[in-house]
């Protein structure tokens, strides 16, 4: 099953195991990467990907197994030691110091400035000034800076964890070609991603983890996706090919829309957005990074004031001064950044129950029995892994994301505002979320669904609006939403005639 490898792999991890108390996060994980290879590391949430990456990069120790670099056992007990051994990671969250400027951050890791500049330019950021404070850079630039810094260290093995999440499409393209060039120059890359399109374009092999065990190692060739999904899901899992069943909703008739937005403007980025959102409908929003979608969601969630324009809920004009106003009108916001929505140190139950009780009129005793019923119903419905009920921060990313949605299921949301709800989570959880969103819509909810992954428009939405430069530039039925058309519109290449009706 394992294809022939170059004689000594650059990195050879065999039988790696790691326990956290009673929970075995890794039981028998193996991963080999040879010179000139890009290997995809794949697995569902909780399969142990993050743990393996942390072990390989020195952020965690391991209990069993051996890790050879260049065929020799080398100490990788700390991030610094791992770097010295030639293993350099780019984590999902940027590992840059927010209160220092770029030059200081480079000095901290002893990164050569010239090499950094070269890679930053290659990756599409030629104009970075070194005295820019890190906390002033947008997330996408931070990730590019992090990657450029890693490349400047000339790593033997580069570990990329969801590198392209939160990146706009043009930067994704540059990242992929730079990473491929690294491999072609004889280095090794471990590439963690949930995006099959990127994996088939970039990777040579895929190593699949399930429940802490390496269950497969496959060369990437056409049609391998289904096999990988089967491996990730395991025996007896639901047929992987079944995509989220989308009931064809009838085109909204003359009924009054649940949410009606007209000529909305906010901040400097959102200039003129109008759309109607009906009950029972999932409306996708497509936009490159920073086209005003964040402002749109913030205004609708009551977190930010609009400069101009009107918002109507069920036909009544509204102006939100506080998120509680939006929640009271049935608008529930699920931010893309899970940490912004959850009380990380509190239990799953408290997190789900919070919107139920967080209204001024509800101060006083909490009806624990009723709360328990609603919460357990929501947990069951979302199939949240409840082994770590005590603290949300101990859940995996996908399960955390489910909690952010579950709280609004428990409350009975009328209008859901989902901002990139599937960012960085695995295929299986993604599908559960698509199904859930569809269920909610079928039960009469109206859903606004921003996604950074174009394919989700077809899988989760009924129709989509495309925002470019703060304006709606196209409206597309999900059935017609092929990537090429969405991409052209997202880049402002198509100005649909009747876009702003």
């Amino acid at each position, binding site marked *: 099953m394992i294809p022939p490898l170059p004689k000594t792999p650059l990195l050879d991890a065999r039988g790696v195991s790691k326990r956290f108390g009673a929970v075995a996060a890794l039981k028998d994980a193996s991963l080999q990467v040879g010179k000139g290879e890009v290997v995809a590391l794949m697995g569902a949430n909780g399969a142990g990907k993050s743990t393996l990456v942390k072990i390989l990069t020195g952020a965690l120790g391991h209990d069993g197994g051996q890790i050879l670099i260049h065929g020799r056992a080398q100490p990788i007990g700390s991030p610094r030691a791992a770097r010295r051994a030639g293993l350099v990671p780019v984590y999902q969250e940027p590992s*840059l110091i927010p209160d220092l400027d770029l030059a200081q*951050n480079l*000095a901290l890791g002893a990164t050569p400035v010239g090499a950094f500049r070269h890679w930053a330019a290659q990756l599409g950021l030629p104009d970075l000034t070194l005295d820019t404070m890190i906390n002033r850079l947008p997330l996408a630039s931070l990730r590019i800076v992090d990657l450029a810094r890693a490349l400047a260290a000339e790593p033997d093995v580069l570990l990329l964890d969801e590198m392209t999440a939160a990146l706009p499409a043009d930067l994704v393209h540059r990242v992929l070609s730079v990473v491929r060039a690294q491999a072609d120059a004889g280095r090794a890359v471990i590439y963690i991603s949930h995006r099959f399109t990127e994996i088939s374009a970039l990777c040579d092999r895929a190593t699949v983890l399930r429940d802490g065990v390496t269950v497969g190692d496959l060369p990437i060739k056409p049609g391998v996706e289904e096999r990988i999904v089967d491996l990730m899901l395991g025996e007896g899992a639901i047929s992987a090919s079944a995509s989220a069943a989308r009931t064809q909703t009838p085109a909204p008739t003359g009924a009054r829309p649940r949410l009606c937005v007209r000529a909305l403007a906010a901040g400097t980025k959102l200039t003129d957005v109008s759309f109607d959102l009906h009950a029972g409908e999932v409306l996708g929003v497509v936009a490159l990074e920073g086209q005003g979608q964040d402002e749109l969601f913030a205004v609708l969630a009551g977190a930010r004031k609009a400069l101009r324009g009107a918002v109507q809920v069920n036909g009544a004009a509204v102006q939100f001064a506080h998120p509680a106003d939006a929640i009271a009108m049935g608008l529930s916001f699920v931010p893309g950044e899970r940490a912004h929505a959850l009380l990380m140190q509190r239990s799953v139950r408290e997190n789900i129950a919070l919107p139920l009780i967080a209204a001024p009129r509800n101060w006083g005793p909490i009806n624990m029995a009723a709360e328990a019923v609603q919460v357990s119903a929501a947990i069951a419905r979302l199939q949240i892994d409840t082994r770590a009920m005590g603290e949300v921060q101990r859940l995996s990313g996908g399960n955390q994301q489910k909690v952010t949605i579950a709280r609004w299921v428990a409350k009975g949301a009328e209008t859901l505002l989902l901002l990139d709800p599937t960012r960085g989570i695995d295929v299986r959880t993604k599908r559960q979320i698509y199904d859930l969103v569809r269920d909610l819509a079928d039960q009469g909810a109206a859903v606004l669904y921003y996604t950074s992954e174009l394919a989700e428009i077809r899988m989760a939405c009924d129709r989509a609006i495309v925002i470019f430069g703060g304006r709606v530039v196209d409206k597309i039925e999900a059935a017609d939403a092929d990537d090429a058309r969405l991409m052209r519109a997202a880049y402002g290449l198509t100005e649909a005639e009747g876009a702003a009706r």
Partner: protein
Amino acid sequence: MSRFAQKNGWTLGLAALFAGLLIATKLIQPGFGLSGLDSLARAALPFAFATAAMTVVVLAGGIDLSVASMMAVASVSGARLMEGASEAEAAGIVGLVLLVGLAMGAINGALIVLTRVPDIVVTLSMLFVWEGTALLILQGPEGGCAIWLRDLILGGLSLPFVPGALTEWLPKAAVLVAVVLAVVWVPVARSKLGLSIYAVGSDPLAAFRSGVSLGRTRIAAYAIAGLLAAFGGLSLTMATGIGAPIPGPYLMAAVAAVVLGGVALTGGKGGLLGPILAVFVLRLVRMDLTLLSVDPNVTTIIEGTIMVIVVMMGGLLAARERGR
């Protein structure tokens, strides 16, 4: 230039506030002159060292509640050893006391890192430990101090080969603070240790992933704080000629100056100059209010109010800049 102003806006604002207060003092008390400046500097001296010590740990994302107690230990060990010692021996004693300070700070830091008990709990406990230690060394305000040490902070500065008129207005006490901080902090701030201190305070996870050793950096920050607290303790002995075993009001005053000086209590943000200027601002406000014969109880209310207003203004200005 504008970039410099942007980065150091808070410090420049404090300097302007201090200048305005000096003018106000002159208006309130036309007789305010060199001797007034000198007594201000001497009054501010222990506060300045306590604040500098606190600033270093706060920048590293911690807090040290034992600063005043460490000052007491340094003060009494200096006074006890110098009693009856020769002037030349005093130099060695100063060095020894500074080492004791460094060690006390390192112990604080090591306890925090090794036991993983929160810094606020460890240093609260050590507040009592160092306080008891100081009383074991010296039961009451007694002991001695070398004359040359006492002279170090008395009166205006006079340098060889420089006309007295140029330097005499500058209190020696203020010069001492500047020299000590320059010698201790500038090399640190310019080195990787300084970056690491800011990094650990700003985002420990990112710092760890950038290869910074969190434990070593934290211990170093606490050790530097202990060293600066030892300077503060010595300055007490220098000012009074005897040891002070009971910790003075330096802990809360240091936290106040750190906040007023533009350092984020969450760590990673700010510098050393701002808090030191804040010490002088707070001391001068107190002096002015005393000159105006305001009730001392009202004085503390006014001090607290000033802090909230200044920090609020800073927040508003920052918010406005972000909104732009």
